[in-house]
């Protein structure tokens, strides 16, 4: 030991009864310590009854307590005291611990471990758990959640509701949904918005934007999009994504604390992309299967994605990267392979009159 053991130390005694701090001389004995407190009192603390509560960090005075509940305390500002206390009492860690930084190795190991665990949880743990949970969520909950989301995203005054168009879409959706038995009741809402997009909320609530209906060149293309979205519902992708995002948010908040709103947001955005890409492929393949089961021409779906790809190529690179529906060549090639050898036995998605009604669903009548 570099520093010799000292037996007498200057400190303060806090009796736990008043806020007065009394100077004390602490003497280390064989089985306990004795403190001569200013004002005449002398207290005897056996080592076995003492616990160290502060003094684990550089510059922090050593604080010893004795007694249950509200304890009396001895504070010795000189950190070297703990070394003498350990030596004389023969009691060492974990009860009497030296101040000092944690071993660099521990900290480094914990940092690496934390990052690895975070990646594992984020990449596999949370998605797997979300899948298990989502599969057990009652359809009625999904239905209610989906209705809330749709009401927010597509408020009643922004919906297109021309009855003929709505009837045609309902019939097409019904035909696709009937191809696979499920507990869901599918509904479709057209939002008056020029963007080319569609999405599925949990519980069977589909939202199609006006721009998509105008961009589609045939009812089969619309059918392809609907089948894709129906599969998102059947595979509970949206429910899973919501659970995943919420769990990730809780985890991030637990570790980074309330200062992390920004990060929760960033992680949230990243999560939306990562989960979607995985699920898009599944929705594509299963959607295509659904189209064939409903005797609808799957080439419409492929044609629509191709036109979306051309659109994407014209967009600036940054936007292309951020797209949640990556219409990559691979995706289209995959669909082509799936669709191969299925020519012939299809029935038209909609009649000409119905298709016209769908395209005019947002026109104001009278």
């Amino acid at each position: 030991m570099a520093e010799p053991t000292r037996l007498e130390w200057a400190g303060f005694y806090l009796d736990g009864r008043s806020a007065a701090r009394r100077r004390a001389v602490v003497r280390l004995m064989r089985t306990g310590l004795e403190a001569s407190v200013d004002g005449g009192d002398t207290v005897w603390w056996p080592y076995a009854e003492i616990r160290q509560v502060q003094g684990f960090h550089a510059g922090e005075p050593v604080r010893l307590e004795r007694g249950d509940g509200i304890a009396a305390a001895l504070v010795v500002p000189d950190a070297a005291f703990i070394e003498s206390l350990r030596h004389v009492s023969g009691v060492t860690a974990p009860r009497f611990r030296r101040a000092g930084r944690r071993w660099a190795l521990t900290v480094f190991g914990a940092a690496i471990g934390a990052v690895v665990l975070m990646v594992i949880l984020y990449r596999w743990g949370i998605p797997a758990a979300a899948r298990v949970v989502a599969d057990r969520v009652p359809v009625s909950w999904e239905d209610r959640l989906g209705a809330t989301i749709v009401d927010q995203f597509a408020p009643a005054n922004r919906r297109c509701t021309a009855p003929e168009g709505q009837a045609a879409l309902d019939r097409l959706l019904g035909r696709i949904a009937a191809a696979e038995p499920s507990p869901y009741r599918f509904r479709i809402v057209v939002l008056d918005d020029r963007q080319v997009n569609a999405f599925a909320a949990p519980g069977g609530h589909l939202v199609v934007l006006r721009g998509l209906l105008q961009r589609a060149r045939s009812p089969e293309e619309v059918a392809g999009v609907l089948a894709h979205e129906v599969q998102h519902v059947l595979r509970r992708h949206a429910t899973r994504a919501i659970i995943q995002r919420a769990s990730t948010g809780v985890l991030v908040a637990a570790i980074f604390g309330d200062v992390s709103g920004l990060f929760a947001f960033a992680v949230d955005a990243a999560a939306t992309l990562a989960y979607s890409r995985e699920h898009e492929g599944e929705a594509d393949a299963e959607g295509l299967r659904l189209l064939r089961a409903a005797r609808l021409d799957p080439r419409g779906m492929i044609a629509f994605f191709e036109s979306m790809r051309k659109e994407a190529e014209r967009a600036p690179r940054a936007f292309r990267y951020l797209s949640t529906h990556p219409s990559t060549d691979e995706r289209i090639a995959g669909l082509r392979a799936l669709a191969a050898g299925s020519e012939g036995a299809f029935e038209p998605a909609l009649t000409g009159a119905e298709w016209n009604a769908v395209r005019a669903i947002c026109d104001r009548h009278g």
Partner: protein
Amino acid sequence: MADTCPKCGRPAVGSDQCPGCGFVISLYDRYLAERGHDPSRKSAAAPAVPAASAPIVWTPVPRREAGGDGSPSWRASESRLLAFHGAGRDLFSIWIVCAFLTLATLGVYYFWAKTRVRHYLYGQTEIEGDRFAYHGTGEELFVGFAKAVVFFIIPIILLSNAPGWFGWGLMATKLGKLGATVLTGLFTPLAIVGARRYRLSRTSWRGIRFSFRGDAKTFVARFVGWSILIFLTAGFYYPVFLVRKQQYLTDHSYFGNARFRFTGEASGLMTAYLRLVGAFAVFFTAFMTVWISALFFGAAALLLPLAAGALVVGVWIKFAAEKRCYFWDHTELEGATLRCSVTPGALARLYLANAVLLLMTLGLATPWVKVRNARFTCETLALDGPIDIDAIAQDAQAAPSTGEGLATFFDTDVGIG
């Protein structure tokens, strides 16, 4: 004149006032004389020296020529400064291990992690030469959380969903929804009161516990009333609500048997709040008119909402600084008053630097940000005025951890940091 300062022990003090700590010795002597003490500083008898073996050396503690203890309880005019001694790298070594364990236990360790971080932060905070201490435990937080789940979260989920699951009919559904709404409404005030009760009861300074003795029922009733008033006044009651809430929380807080007092006025924050509302109005007006002005000024018109946005952020920070100082400057303890020196500029610099730190390190700088915040709080806070600290006696109160468990569900105090 005395040759040793009775407060800081500085030797060879030539004048009446100690050049080291500014302590006025004659005032102290007069105080002692008034209380019937002998002002002549006497030395304590040297203690008996126990026999020591070879490696043990005997270094007697130097006796100071002081009449009482090192910190006399009375001074004519004084200011006690808070100090925060923590270091980011120390907290990081705690935080990263906690983060690892929290992840490895799928969140169960969270409560113990939070406790460890609090122990550190409290132990690094000092006033008048003594550190604060935190006495909470991870078990308590865990039990509090479990109770909050059992008594609030599960009932809320059941009330709002069970009638639907079991098909109990419209009446039951409506009653269930009503019950869930009532429980959710009680949640916030109960969490505020409960968390304060728990945290103060687990905080001590010089061995004396803090406590909160407000009545949960009273606070919940008032909170509901305030919420209704905020709604009826379209939000203009909000600054009054902030003050009234603070008043209730402060007035029922104690340090030992010494009670805190809040001396603010109900309308104290109104001006600051109206300024904030005004800034928002300007922002929205700018946003609405930007399309029209674009016709005349082109793209330059975009600067308008940008400037208005900057105005909102500036005024919001000013409001945050004013609120903080209003609460502190109107908090009294036994004749002493907290004094706040937060300026909007300093607060803005703190927020900006913290945001940059967090963004640059993807959140790894969280412990440094915590330390910066704690240091800022301590450096801008002082306790002014004469206060007889030694006369304050222990008067600790029991406090369950359920409220703290409820508070876990709010973003106000989430995170192991």
